């Protein structure tokens, strides 16, 4: 495996995305923002959860999709905060120039960063499982529904992170990246409403189905959040991640070639 041996330095094979992933994940947990996001989310959810519990008392089984659904809605605030820094900062500081002259494919770099943000999201979701534990204490929640909802929220988060990361590649300004990320996520979140409006419009009704399928909610709200695992929904989220990462990679490449 050792190639290019000069003096005492040995160069072996490397998995660059793993190094990028480790650095980025460590950075989340060293910066106050990760803790601030986690605290805000948990705090907000606990207030809603409390109200929800007192309202839903006596219902059986207790709907497990409540907390994951709120989490998916909150992604439009959370994901841009997680992704705005990832590439914008590297472009502004010029550190991209060193990274992009290392023997590493851009894709490793992008995927490593994406996985770090997604890992943070995973931790956040795991923290909210505590609400489900509370539910099991006071009612009989459906385990399959819970699994579907949480698994769906996990996939949903990954997709939203990948989509909002595109903007971090487009601009060097973190605030702009966050704002555009949030806007894009909201548009995709609300696509279902647009689809309904389009369906009522004679000329454009043919677009309605497409717009609906493009949005996040069509693949989460009615299916995954109720524990229904459909291959097409899972495929939708995976495809969105792959396409978004591909776009991000291309943007980084094009910006580099023009810089």
């Amino acid at each position, binding site marked *: 495996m*050792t190639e*290019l041996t*000069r*003096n*005492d*330095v*040995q*160069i*072996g*094979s*490397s998995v*660059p995305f*793993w*190094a*990028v992933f*480790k*650095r980025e994940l460590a*950075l989340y947990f*060293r910066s106050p923002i990760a803790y601030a996001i986690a605290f805000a989310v948990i705090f907000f959810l606990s207030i809603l959860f409390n109200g929800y519990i007192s309202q839903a008392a006596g219902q059986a089984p207790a709907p497990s999709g409540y907390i994951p659904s709120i989490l998916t809605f909150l992604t439009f605030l959370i994901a841009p905060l997680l992704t705005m820094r990832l590439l914008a900062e590297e472009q502004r*500081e*010029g*550190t*991209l*120039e*060193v*990274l*992009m*002259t*290392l*023997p*590493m494919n851009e894709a490793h770099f992008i995927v490593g960063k994406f996985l770090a943000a997604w890992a943070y999201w995973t931790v956040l979701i795991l923290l909210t499982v505590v609400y489900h534990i509370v539910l099991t204490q006071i009612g009989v929640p459906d385990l399959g529904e819970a699994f579907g909802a949480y698994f769906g929220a996990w996939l949903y988060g990954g997709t939203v992170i990948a989509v909002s990361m595109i903007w971090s590649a487009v601009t060097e300004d973190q605030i702009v990246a966050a704002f555009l990320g949030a806007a894009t996520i909201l548009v995709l979140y609300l696509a279902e409403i647009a689809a309904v409006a389009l369906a009522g419009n004679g000329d454009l009704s043919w677009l309605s189905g497409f717009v609906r399928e493009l949005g996040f909610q069509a693949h989460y709200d009615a299916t995954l959040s109720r524990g229904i695992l459909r291959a097409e929904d899972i495929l939708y989220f995976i495809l969105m991640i792959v396409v978004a990462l591909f776009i991000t990679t291309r943007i980084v490449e094009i910006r*580099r*070639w*023009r*810089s």
Partner: protein
Amino acid sequence: MIEVENLTKSYGEVVAVKGISFTARPGQVTGFLGPNGAGKTTTMRMLTGFMPPTSGKASVAGYDVFNQSLEVRKRVGYLPENVPLYRDMSALGYLTYIGEIRGVRNVKARAMDVLERVGLGSRANSHIRALSKGMRQRVGLAQALLHNPPVLILDEPTIGLDPIQVLELRQLVAELGRDHTVLFSTHILGEAEQVCDSVVIINQGSIVAQGSPTELRSTLLERGGRVLVRVDVTPELALPIIRDLSSVAHAEIAFDGIIATPKSVEFDPRPQIARALIEHDMNLMELRPLAVNLEEIFLELTRAQTAQPNQPVEALESASEDESA
């Protein structure tokens, strides 16, 4: 070994590098010299695989920079201008990160080795944001040396350093030149003269001269003819005398003296100038062909190219910088 052939880079309308060709040999420091905006950084970015050339060819360590970019990158250590680093990491952490991506074995030990080599062993665990400009520069250099590459590309590594740090860095670059191919860009001409075995002078995207500092000097002496005159009175007094001489076509004040251009290259005006000045009771302090150091060669070459009487501010600045040093 770096071989560049007809390399061109354009951004839309603007041509930043216009078909340049040069070779940087192993075991030598090749100076890449030119004012800011001459195309040095653009060329280096093409050589390191950061951006593709518009046309032309370049190979580094035997691999084509465009088609075999990954192989080139394995063999190049690159220190970009302005030394971009992650401020939130320690020097050791940063080098470990880069080393892991490069696949360096025993990366921590190797990172410590290079930090020692650049004299930062004791600051390995300091955050980069807490390091001085000179130290950061050395962290950047350590990054370039980490995988012991055969080729080093250093973009203005001495910029922003204090005089002692500049001397240390030049010495380090000269040492590295013994067993590496080093391409080293600078806009300070004295620096190139001191450190480099070979110099490539670039201005406005084109190469205006290349060769060893000695070669460049003699070429210009042959081509030249222009002479520098210094007298013990203000040059304004001597100017009309020199101007009126039959062998002098043109004279002007520069470098605290007078630069005289002869009417014909074959005819050396120096004896006539010397006689005339002494006849006018002026003491001749200096009388020599121009372009004996790189500053003057550079001014000569860029003057020929831009055909403007005013020198670029950049070059004048570096001239005075060198004088005061």
